[in-house]
Structures are given as C-alpha cells and as structure tokens.
C-alpha cells in the first residue's frame, strides 16, 4: 500500500519534529504526557510502515477522478466567507455565501427559474437562522456593518 507508506512517513517526520520541540518547554514535567503519546505514535507509525512494506493488500479499483476545479472553488468560497464574515456581518455573509455556492457550483443547470428559487431558499434559510437564534435563543453573532 503506497498510501500507507506515505502516511507513516509523514507521521514519523512529524513525530520526530514534535519530540525535539519538547526539549524547549518551560517546565519539563508538563512534557511528560505528550512525550508518552509521541513515543506511542512513533511505534504505531513504524508498525504501519512495516505493514505497508510487507503486507501487500490486493489493489481495489479506483473511482472516478478527483474534481479539483470544483473543490478549489468551494474552498476559496469558504475562505472568502470567513474574510467577510466579521466585516459585513454574519447573516448577510451567510446569505451571500449560500447564493454564491448554489450559483457557481451549480452553474451547469442554472435557469432563470432556478436562480430565483435559489435566492429565495437562501433568504428563507438565513431568515430561519436569524429567527431561531437571534430572536428565540438570543445568541451573539458578529454584527459587522449590516446584519
């Protein structure tokens, strides 16, 4: 299993780095518990490495290719959502995110009727959230410039 080999090597590198960083802790007693965990993780990663070398699992068929484009768009939209959340307020940013996701990721079958429907669902969704949490439960949300 090539994947397991990659995982175990990544873990081993991380574990060694973390182990070395333990030496810089202010109080060595605070490092006891993390040290035990790191050592156990080291043993488990080594076992996984050995397993990946000696136990060859039969290769299972692979699914369709990974949709990098779509994934990248979604990831970027979420990051944009985070950036604007505190400045323009929670509900407005949530609504804009909802519309952006449904319009951009669902652009393949976008018709005028569907566009209106998606905006309406976005309004209803954020409206319900606002009612449930700000009105009923009185939860604090980032206010920003608007809502």
């Amino acid at each position, binding site marked *: 299993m090539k*994947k*397991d080999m*990659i*995982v175990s090597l990544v*873990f081993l590198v991380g574990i060694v780095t*973390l182990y070395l*960083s333990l030496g810089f*802790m*202010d*109080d060595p*007693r*605070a*490092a*006891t*518990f*993390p040290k*035990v*965990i*790191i050592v*156990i*993780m080291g043993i*488990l*990663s080594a*076992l*996984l490495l050995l*397993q990946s070398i000696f*136990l060859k*699992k*039969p290769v299972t068929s692979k699914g369709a290719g*990974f*949709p990098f484009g*779509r*994934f990248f768009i*979604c*990831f970027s939209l*979420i990051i944009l*959502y*985070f950036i604007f*959340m*505190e400045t323009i307020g*929670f509900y407005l940013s*949530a609504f804009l*995110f*909802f519309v952006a*996701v*449904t319009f951009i*990721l*669902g652009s*393949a079958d976008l018709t005028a009727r569907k566009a209106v429907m998606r905006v309406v*669902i976005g309004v209803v*969704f*954020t409206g319900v*959230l606002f009612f449930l*949490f700000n009105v009923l*439960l*009185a*939860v*604090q*949300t*980032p206010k920003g410039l608007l809502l």
Partner: protein
Amino acid sequence: MSEFLHYFPQALSFINLLTLVLGVIGGLILGATPGLSPTMAVALLVPFTFHMDPATGLILLGAVYTATVAGGAISAILINIPGAPANIATLLDGHPMAQQGKSQRALYICFISSLVGGLIGMVIMILFSPPLARIALKFGPSEMFWIAIFGISVMAGLSSGSILKGLLGGMFGLLISTIGYSPLLGSPRFVYHDVLTGGIAIVPALIGLFAIPQVFALVETLGHKLERPDFKPEKGILAKTIVENLKMVKALSIGSIVGSIIGIIPGAGGQVAGLIAYDQTKKFSRKPESFGTGNPEGVAAAESANNAMVGPSLIPLLTLSIPGSPTAAVLLGGLLIHGLFPGPDLFITNASITYTFIASLVLAQIAMCVFGIIMSRYSYMVMSVPNLFMIAAVTVLAVYGTYSVQNSFDDVIVMFSLGTLMYIGRKFGFSPAPVVLGIILGPIAEDNYLKGKLIADTDVGVFSYFFTGSMNIVIILLCVASIGYSVYGEIRSYRKAKEAAV
C-alpha cells in the same frame, strides 16, 4: 427506577416537549437525507444546545440521536442507500419490499419495530446505569486513566478499517488535547500561534472533524444522480400493519435482545447489531430463503435491533464516559460543554438533569414512531433535496455553531483547519471518531495519569500503581482484548480479500 418516575414529569414541561418534538422531526429528516450522517447532525447541534438550559439541550440531542437512527432507514428502504451504517441490514429486505410497491408498509414496520426495540433498550438502560455508576465511584486515578485508554482503543477498532490507523487517530486526538496550557502546571505546550493559546475546544473539533469532510465529500459527488425513490402510497394499511408487525414476536424479540446486548458492549456499534439480529432471525425462521427478497421480518429484526441499541449504548457513556458509538461520542461532547461529567455525579448531584434526559429519551421513542408514520407519506421528498443546498447550509451552520459558543473567530479557523486535515486523512483511511474521542478523553487521561503518578511516587512506584490491583488488570485486559479482537478481524478480512483476489 423510583428516581426515574420522580423526575418523569419534568420531561413533560411545555418547552421540553416542544424541543423533543422538533428534535424528532428534524432528526427524521436529517436521518433520511442521503449524504448527511447522523453523527454530523448531532455534532452540528451541540453548540446550539450550549445556549439552552442543560436538560433542554440534552433532550434536543437525545431526540435527534434517536430519530436519526430510525430516519436512516427511510433512505435505505426507498433508494437503497443506508442513511447510517446502522441501517445496512434494513435495506436487505426493506428495499426489495419497496421495489414490490410495499414501501409504505416497509416504513411502517420499520418505525413500529424501532419503537418496540427502542423501549426495551431504554428499560435495560434505566435498570443498569445507576448500579454501574456506583461501581465507578470506587475508581481512583489509575482506573480512570485506563478507562480513558480503553475508550480510545474501543473507538479505534470500531471505526477504522485498520486498527493501526484507528489507534494513530486516537493518539493524535490525545496530542491535540495537550495543546494550550498544561492543566496542572500552567506552562504552555505546542502554542505555535496565538490562536492555540486556549487549546482546542471540543465544539470546534467536533464540528470540524465531522462536518467539513462531509461538505467536501458532497462537493466531490455533486452531480451524481441518485436512484429515484420507489414510493407508492397505499391506503388504510396502518392498523393492519401494526397487527401484522406485533405478531412478529420472534423477529422483534431477537432484534431487541441482540441490540440491547451489543449496545452495552462499548464499541460494537449499531451496524453489527442490525446485521447479527437479521442473521439470527433468518436462521430461526421457517423460511430462511425468503430473506433478502422483501421479507418484512428482516426489516423488523434489523430496525428493532438498531433502536434497542440506543439506550444501552448510553450505559457506558453515562457511567464511565466510554461512548458505545460515534454518535454517542458526540453526545459526550454535548454533556461536557454543560459541565456534566459522566459518572456517579450524574446520577446524584445532577440527577434532575440526567433523569429528565432519560425520561425524554423514552418519550422520543414514542414520538419517533408517531411522527415517522405520519411523515413516511412525504419522506420521499427529502431524497430530492439537491446536494448543492446541503453544501451551503452545512457550511453556514458549522461556522455559525462554532462561532457562537465563545464568540471567537479563532475557533472558526481551528474548526476549518481540523476539518480540512480530516478530509485529507479520510482519503488515507482515517476516521474522525477516534480523534474526537482522543480530544475529549485526553484531559481525563492526563489529569488522572499525573495524579496517579504523584500518589505512586510517594507510595509503591509508578509501575505497581498503574499495573497491579484487580480493577486495573481487568480494564487493561479489556483494552488488550478490544485491540486483539480488531487485529483478528483485520487479519480475517485480509485473508478473505486475498482469497477473493485469487
């Protein structure tokens, strides 16, 4: 039992009943939605319960837990996709029934059997939890430390295909739990950025690990067409189906007994309960060949087992803080954010909250059956909600829930980073449940380890303090047995795969 009856009326207050009904309806819908796991549904709700009264918040989580387990059967029956792993056994006969035009009957049987199993499971839970909690009263730091390790070893074997990866995930969770200031000594650990100063809180971790990978998975499968639900309404079959269902004494009793026993064993999980009950009912049947072709008894056995598991799976959770399933692990997070710690305290100091919660779980079983039957007529509509809306809605809820607990944007960053990491981890065969349990049980393990070490240093030494004493040895043996069993299972499936490949 007397405490249970004493606190029962509290579950009947207006606000608690309203929460219960909303939780059950929401849970049924969430459970029926393909692509949304029950564990994620409960995880998304945890932060909102933070703003409620503890009892009401727990009632909401319990109602959703109960209803999602039954709701998962709807998509199993109608479109052959189990809403949760627990519903795998349901589709074996449930979907053939739907194909024969008997989908409504299959759904009725599913909800009635769930009610029967669920109530039996609750009785077992009410009888066994308090005595077990009293045993936990005798545990010292060394036993508590081992209990935490046992919890992680159990979850490691349960949720991953590979025990090594499960354990690595659990250890990773333990390591994450040490980020921030050391609880006993107050010195900073692994604080590489200001965001990490306060350590990683439970809610951002829960939501990030369960919800974000699901969002990305939905993005991946966007555009895949699901099977059209087979649904033809039949009129006036409710009374007939109830009578027919209750006559399936054999299937219902096998299901409920198997479900209850497997529920108590931490880590055995719901999918096993359903499949074992299904298999046993088939073996005891006079017509075993009819199973798999749409035999209602198969649905009854599987669903009564699934819901019989819910109550007993809370026994180790409420008494020893070992969750019996991934969803129960999330429920543990819900208890902890209200400052409720599993163990004897829950049944003594916080008895009012705990017993109200247990009472509401009994009511939730009944509400689940009633609303399930009412909603089964419209349930097929849930199947046609496009993934697109789910992606947007789950992300917004995840962000909102995470932010609202501490009004902290840092938590949102932690949630999203952990979630993205978990998504990559899932590609390499890791699952979120052991990591979450590591994060939850980490402070318990460390605290008791350090306390135990302090005692041991002045007394008999660390080794004999942690490794001798009958209770320690029993729990250590349980850890070894649970890991050993997973290794055995893995070797067996490896051999089978090898034979199949040849």
